């Protein structure tokens, strides 16, 4: 049996900051990541980030990952296990990892779950054809491994992910004939949307993909306009020849292990689905189990980093580390979170968090 004080699962922005937050207070941390590299979603982000200076605004995502990874790998109190997938949680408080083809049980004093999210799918005839990929998957293929997803790629979803990945496809030399969005408005920040429009990519709002065509893989999609009640309008169908369709219709938190651990969960659509109820310092209803980042509600890397710090500070405090600086550091982090969530872009997350709070106080 392997033992650690703080077990951090997932090494995206939330997990990296969680590990650093706890280690800087004096705790001994084990950070586990199922990929062969650290950084989570950040490693494939080639665009400059928004947010405040504390969260590395106007740096490219993969550069932020490089900096945080270096800080984590240099820290003597953090042990990093890569290619180590957390498999499950057991009643005696043990988490099992799959490491190099073997199962390694780990016991811990406190745990920070920072597993991120997975992409949502969408149902339409032939939606399972090869060539129909998650937008994040296409980004991984293209920006991490340098492989082109196809020649002509349509994007379904005009939120930030859909629009940013469309831009990255253009940068890689792929043709993007259309971005299709079911809602009447573009969800992405306008700077991103304007950038792809300037490059000649039309964004069709109030439109959707009604079917896909092809024998062994995608050759064509049928797109139609949607009525005010979100029904395809007969007679508006048109066909588009594409070899790839990217689906960018949102993410769902990866919460399996939290369910297994018996954390109280609530279904909050604005946060992406089932999310754990938690205190203001991100402790779930199971004492010593914390959450941070997209697994606690789909948001952004900037907020994920601050959440990671908060969870790390409190996970260390529960072990008796960092009493002197705790209050001050937590207050500063809460101020940062509040400033990231203010204004119209933070509306959805604020409303989701309100709904979560209405579900009642977290019982422990």
């Amino acid at each position, binding site marked *: 049996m392997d033992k650690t004080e703080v077990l951090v699962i997932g090494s995206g922005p939330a997990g990296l900051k969680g590990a650093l937050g706890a280690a800087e207070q004096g705790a001994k941390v084990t950070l586990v990541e*199922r*990929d*062969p590299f650290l950084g989570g979603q950040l490693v494939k982000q*080639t665009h400059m980030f928004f947010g405040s200076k504390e969260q590395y605004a106007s740096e*490219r995502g*993969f550069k932020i990952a490089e900096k945080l990874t270096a800080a984590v790998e240099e820290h003597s109190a953090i042990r990093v296990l890569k290619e180590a*997938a957390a498999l499950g949680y057991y009643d005696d408080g043990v988490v099992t990892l799959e490491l190099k083809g073997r199962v390694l049980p780990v016991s811990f004093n406190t745990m920070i779950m920072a597993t991120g999210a*997975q*992409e949502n*799918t969408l149902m339409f005839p032939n939606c*399972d*054809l*090869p*060539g*129909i*990929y*998650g937008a*994040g*998957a*296409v980004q*991984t*293929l*293209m*920006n991490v*491994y*340098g*492989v*082109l*997803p196809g*020649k002509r790629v349509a994007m379904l979803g005009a939120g930030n992910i859909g629009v940013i990945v469309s831009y990255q496809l253009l*940068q*890689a*030399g792929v043709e993007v004939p259309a971005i299709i969005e079911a809602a009447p408005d573009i969800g992405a920040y306008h700077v991103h949307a304007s950038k792809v429009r300037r490059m000649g990519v039309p964004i069709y709002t109030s439109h959707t993909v009604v079917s896909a065509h092809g024998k*062994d*893989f995608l050759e064509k999609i049928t797109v139609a306009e949607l009525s005010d009640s979100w029904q395809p309008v007969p007679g508006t169908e048109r066909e588009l020849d594409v070899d790839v369709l990217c689906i960018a219709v949102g993410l769902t938190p*990866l919460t399996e292990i939290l369910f297994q651990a018996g954390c109280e969960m609530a279904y909050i659509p604005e946060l992406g689905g089932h999310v754990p109820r938690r205190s203001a310092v991100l402790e779930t209803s199971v004492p010593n189990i914390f959450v941070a980042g997209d697994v606690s509600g789909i948001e952004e890397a900037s907020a994920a980093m601050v959440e990671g710090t908060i969870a790390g500070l409190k996970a260390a405090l529960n072990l008796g580390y960092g009493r002197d600086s705790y209050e001050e550091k937590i207050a500063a982090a809460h101020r940062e979170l509040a400033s990231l969530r203010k204004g119209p872009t933070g509306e959805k997350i604020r409303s989701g968090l309100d709904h979560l709070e209405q579900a009642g106080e977290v019982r422990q």
Partner: protein
Amino acid sequence: MRIQNHPILDFKKGKKVSFTFDGSRFEGYEGEPIAAALHAAGVKVLSHSRQHKRPRGFWCAIGNCSSCNMQVDGVPNVRTCVEPLREGMVVQIQQGKGEVGGAPDG
């Protein structure tokens, strides 16, 4: 198809290795996911659905969805979107669910 020139990224590639896919010889770079090497070589169909035998490709690229599960060196249900490619690998489209400890040819 691989990206030759990118305005922002440099791709660090491993050494060139060869492997077989359903008996034919392919090349890829060591350490990249098997599915990435296959995709670069134009192979899109990686598995078939159990009941209706519909073609399945890659979907999530993070080892979650099982759409890219294949038989690799005789081991079934390998998540090829995250499994690093190595010299001499024998990659096959899997028939059925696969058997734990089954014969190498399935």
